[in-house]
């Protein structure tokens, strides 16, 4: 709730040049964002641009693969362009889900090293587990905030491999309120989940702390 006399528009402090680097000819951080929602695409694009990242936004997993040149076609729009440093994808998308996209990326020798972050409005434990186990760096809850993206890009930018793996080893923060879901919901699009038989660690390695 806005406080009395709240500043209506606060500018970002200073030059929040998290992604862009100073100096001539230095590469900028390039993020590929995937989301079927028009509103969310606009917001994530702005979030990333406000942190001086280069952004490519696409509306589906298949478009993302096309951009990366993983769709089996010889021509690939993005491959010769600026390399992708991070992929942020919505989970629930028609056609190819974010999870399926994640699998394809991690299954590709050319792109498996690119960190992939999943975004979802539903914090279903089985879903989070599955994504992290498939190699997602992080699972962000929607609506995505500036602080989430800023934190992400900070550690990924610093990210030598050991930085990233340090983060992965972190214990689940206590403040993280995950909801357990029961996979028997007929309308859950986790019908492909075999989590009901999974006996491995019930807690995900990491989730967005509140």
């Amino acid at each position, binding site marked *: *709730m*806005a406080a*009395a*006399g*709240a*500043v*209506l*528009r*606060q*500018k*970002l402090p200073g030059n929040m040049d998290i992604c862009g680097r100073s100096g001539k000819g230095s590469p900028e951080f390039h993020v590929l964002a995937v989301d079927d*929602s*028009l*509103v*969310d695409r*606009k*917001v994530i694009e*702005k*979030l990333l641009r*406000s942190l001086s990242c280069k952004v490519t936004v696409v509306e589906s997993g298949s478009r993302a693969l096309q951009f990366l040149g993983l769709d089996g076609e010889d021509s690939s729009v993005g491959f010769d362009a600026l390399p992708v440093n991070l992929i942020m994808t919505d989970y*629930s998308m*028609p056609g190819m889900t974010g999870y399926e996209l994640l699998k394809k990326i991690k299954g590709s020798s050319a792109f498996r090293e690119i960190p992939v972050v999943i975004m979802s*409005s539903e914090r279903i434990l089985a879903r989070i587990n599955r994504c992290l186990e498939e190699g997602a760096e992080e699972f962000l809850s*929607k*609506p995505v*905030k*500036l602080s989430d993206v800023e934190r992400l890009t900070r550690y990924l930018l610093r990210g030598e491999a050991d930085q990233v793996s340090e983060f992965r080893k972190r214990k689940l923060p206590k403040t993280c309120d995950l909801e357990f879901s029961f996979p028997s*919901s*007929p*309308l859950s699009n986790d019908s492909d989940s075999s989590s009901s038989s999974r006996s491995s660690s019930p807690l995900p390695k990491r989730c967005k702390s509140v």
Partner: protein
Amino acid sequence: MDVVQLKRQLIAFTELLFGEGFLDEQFNQLQQLQDENNPNFVAEVATLFFEDSERILNELANNLDKQSVDFKKVDAHVHQLKGSSSSIGAQRVQRVCIIFRNFCNERNVEGCLKCLQQLKHEYALVKSKLEALFSLEQQILAAGGSPSI
């Protein structure tokens, strides 16, 4: 009306919108992203939200009008609307979506229809409030002021 009065109005109106739950913190997030380079960012997001919502509300009406309702489809549409309303901070719309999804889960047509009515109502409300907000901002700009502090 002079700029100072208009600004006071804007602040009071904004507080009201937050106080009555029309908008939540996410709207603040969007406002913080707006700057000189993108002075219409929030209004642009709102426009997308309006277009998206109207499309979805129509789909919902069509889908619930059928003899045999495809609840999975209905749920998918409500999920979309829940997402976009959440992304813009349209809290009351988002909340109705949550209830709506429960009815979908229960395959309760009555419940769904009631929710659709409520959704239309809440959507119309938040749309008019946001338009009023943007209009105030435009007035401030026209009067030579700046809506930001």
